[in-house]
C-alpha cells in the first residue's frame, strides 16, 4: 500500500523538491568563505559581552561597550564575542553560554545583570566576570557586601561629572535657578543629583536647584511626555538650564528646551543632535574606557575582583566640549571648569555621592 501511494507522480514531485533542497543545502555546507570566523580555539584572550535590552545601536550604553570591545580587539588582540539577548529569560542564558565555554572574561552591560552575574560568578569560579553599573548589595547596616573574587563591578563616579556640568549650568545660565530632572527615583540617579547640586553651589552659593523625578518605576526612564511637562514648568519658573539623568524621558526635556528657547544638558552619550543649539553639553560616561580597561587587566594579569570606580581621573566620566557647543561656553568658563576638574582629581574638592 505504501509503495502504491508513493508511486504517484505528484507525490514524487514533492519528495524530489525536498531532496533537491537538501542536496543544495548539503553542497552549501562545504562552502567556507574567506574571512569566516574559524572555530574557537583555546589560546588567546576570549571575551564575551552581553548587551542590555537596548542592544547595539542605542547610541549610548550598549554602543559604548561595543566600542570598548572593538578597541580591545584591535589593540590587545582579544577575540570578542557579542550577544544580544533581548527579553528577560535569555539574559541569564547569554551569560551562561559564554561562561560554559570557559571564556577569559564575560561582561554584562547594565545593572540589570546584577543578580545573574552574581550567581554565575559563584558557579564558575574559573571564569572572570565584569558588570557595568553593577548594583552592589548592602547588608542591614548599609555596608557593602563583598563580591566574589572573580567578579569586578565597573562603577562610575557620576557625581564628579555631574559636579562639572552643575558648575557649567550655574556659570552660563544667567539665572539663580537651575534645574535637574531624574528618571527613576533611585540611589543611582541620586548620585547625579548630589554631584550636580554640589557643582552649582560651589560656583554660586545663593543659587537654588529645582530637582524633580519622573517616577518610581523603570517606566520613569521611558516617559518623554512627563519629561517635557516637568521641564516646561521649571523653565516657566525661571530656570534657564536643565540637566537630565532620565533615559528617553530626557527627550522630552530637549523638546521643552527648544520650545522655551532655553538650554538642556544631556547624559551618558553626546546628545547634541537631539536638539542642536539647545544642548549646552552632555555629561558622558566612558563605558568604552571601562570595558577596555577590564579586558586589558585580564590580558596584563592584573584582574581583581571587587568594585572598580571610574571617575574624572580615569577618564570614566566627563562632559562634551567640541565644535558644536564651543559657542555656548565662554572661554573664561571653560578655564574655570578645567581648574575645578584638576581640583577634583587632586582631591582638593570631594564631591558627595548621596543627597
Amino acid at each position, binding site marked *: 500500500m505504501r509503495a502504491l501511494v508513493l508511486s504517484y507522480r505528484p507525490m514524487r514531485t514533492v519528495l524530489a523538491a525536498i531532496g533537491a533542497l537538501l542536496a543544495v543545502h548539503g553542497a552549501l555546507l562545504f562552502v567556507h568563505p574567506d574571512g569566516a570566523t574559524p572555530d574557537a580555539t583555546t589560546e588567546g584572550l576570549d571575551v564575551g559581552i552581553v548587551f542590555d535590552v537596548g542592544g547595539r545601536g542605542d547610541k549610548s550604553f550598549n554602543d559604548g561597550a561595543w566600542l570598548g570591545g572593538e578597541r580591545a580587539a584591535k589593540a590587545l588582540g582579544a577575540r570578542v*564575542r557579542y550577544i544580544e539577548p533581548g527579553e*528577560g529569560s535569555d539574559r541569564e542564558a547569554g551569560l551562561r553560554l559564554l561562561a560554559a565555554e570557559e571564556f577569559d572574561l564575560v561582561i554584562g552591560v547594565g545593572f540589570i545583570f546584577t543578580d545573574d552575574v552574581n550567581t554565575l560568578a559563584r558557579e564558575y569560579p574559573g571564569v572572570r566576570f565584569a558588570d557595568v553599573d553593577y548594583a552592589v548589595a548592602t547588608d542591614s547596616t548599609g555596608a557593602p557586601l563583598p563580591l566574589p573574587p572573580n567578579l569586578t563591578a565597573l562603577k562610575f563616579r557620576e557625581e564628579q561629572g555631574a559636579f562639572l556640568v552643575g558648575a557649567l549650568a550655574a556659570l552660563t545660565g544667567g539665572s539663580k535657578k537651575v534645574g535637574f530632572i531624574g528618571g527613576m527615583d533611585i540611589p543611582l540617579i541620586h548620585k547625579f543629583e548630589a554631584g550636580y547640586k554640589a557643582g552649582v553651589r560651589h560656583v554660586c552659593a545663593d543659587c537654588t536647584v529645582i530637582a524633580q523625578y519622573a517616577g518610581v518605576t523603570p517606566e520613569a526612564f521611558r516617559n518623554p511626555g512627563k519629561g517635557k511637562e516637568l521641564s516646561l514648568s521649571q523653565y516657566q519658573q525661571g530656570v534657564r538650564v536643565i540637566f537630565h539623568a532620565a533615559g528617553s524621558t530626557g527627550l522630552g526635556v530637549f523638546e521643552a528646551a527648544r520650545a522655551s528657547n532655553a538650554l538642556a544638558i544631556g547624559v551618558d552619550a553626546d546628545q547634541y543632535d537631539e536638539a542642536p543649539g539647545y544642548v549646552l553639553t552632555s555629561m558622558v560616561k566612558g563605558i568604552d574606557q571601562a570595558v577596555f580597561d577590564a579586558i586589558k587587566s585580564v590580558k596584563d594579569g592584573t584582574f581583581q575582583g571587587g568594585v572598580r570606580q571610574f571617575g574624572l581621573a580615569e577618564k570614566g566620566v566627563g562632559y562634551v566640549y567640541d565644535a558644536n557647543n564651543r559657542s555656548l561656553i565662554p572661554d573664561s568658563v571653560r578655564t574655570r571648569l578645567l581648574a575645578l576638574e584638576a581640583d577634583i582629581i587632586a582631591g582638593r574638592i570631594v564631591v558627595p555621592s548621596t543627597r
Partner: protein
Amino acid sequence: MSRGMQREAVLAAVLPPLVALAVALVVGDLLILAFGQAPATVFGMLLQGTWGNAYGFGQVLYKATTLTCTGLAFAMAGRAGLFNVGAESQLALGGLAAALVGLALPAGTPPLAAVPVCVAAAMGAGAAAGGVAGWLRARFGASEVIVTIMLNFITLAALNWLVATRLHVPESLHTPEIRAGAVARLSDTWPAFHGSAANFMLIGALALAVAAWWFLFRTRGGYELRAVGLQPDAAEFGGIRAGRVWILAMLLSGACAGLGGTNYVLGYKHYYEDGFAAGAGFLGIAVALVGRNHPFGIVISALLFATLSQGGLAVNALVPKQIVDILQAVVIISVAVAVPEVRQLLRNAVPARARSATPA
C-alpha cells in the same frame, strides 16, 4: 476511511512542514554566506548550543513548554474555525493569576496541593479572557480576531499598570516571590540540566497535548467542535449549537494559553514579571500552523521553534540574531504556501486509484 486515504491524510499533514524545513535550511545557508560565514560552522554551533549539551537541551525544553501551550491554544480555537490572536495576553494573565495565588497561599503549603491550585488559577484566568471573546462572537457576532487583538492591548496595559503601581518589588517590574506552588526544575532530579530553566511544567504541557488530542478526536464534544470548524451551518443543521461550541472552544483555548504562564512563574523565576510573555503567545500561531493544528504536531513544532530561538543565542557571535527571526518567518511562509500546493497535488493524483483501492 481506507488505510490508503489515511496515509494520504498523514502525508498531506507531514509533507508541508518538511518542505518548509528544507527551504529554511537553504535560505539559512544563503543568509549565513551573505554574512561571510561558513554555513557548516554556524549550523554546527546552532546544534551544539541546543541539542548538543544538556544545558542547551534544557533551554529548548523550557521554551518548547510555553510554545506547546500557546500552540495548543491557537489550535483549539482553530479547530472550531476561530482565530485566537489573544494568546499573548491570556498567557500573561495566566502567569499573573498563578503568581497571585502563589503569593496568597501560606508558605509551606505542600506542593501537591499548591501547584494544582496555582495551575487551576492560571488556566481559569486564561479561560476567562478567551471566553469573553468567544461569548462576544456567539452573542453579537463580533469578530474574534478583532476582539482578541484589542483584548491584548487592554489586558497587557492593565497588567502593566497593576504590577507597576500595586504589586512590584521596588526598583523592579516584578512581584515578590511566590510563597507556595513552585515547581521543581529538571536539574533538581538530573544535575546535568544544571542552570537551565527547564522544569516539570514540561509534563503539564505534554499532558495538555494528550488531553487536547483525546478531546478533539475521541469525544463527542471534540467532534462537535471540529464539525463547527469545518462548516458551522451544516453543524447547526445537524443539531449542534455553534454559538455554544465557539464559547467552549475559546474557553479551552484561553485555558491552554494560561497554563503556559505557569512555566515561567511557577517553574523558572517564581514571580510574575511584566512582559515575560515576550511574544511567545504570537509565536504560538506559527507553532500551530507548522504543527498543522494537531496536538502532537504542535509538540514537535514547538521543539523546532524553541530550537531556533535558543540556537539564535548560540550563533549570535557569528551572525546577527535576526537571522533566526528570518528563518522562523521562512518556515511559516513556506508552510502557508506548501499546504494548499500539496493538497492540490494529492487531489489531482488520488481520485483514479487510491480512492477506489480496496479498504485494507
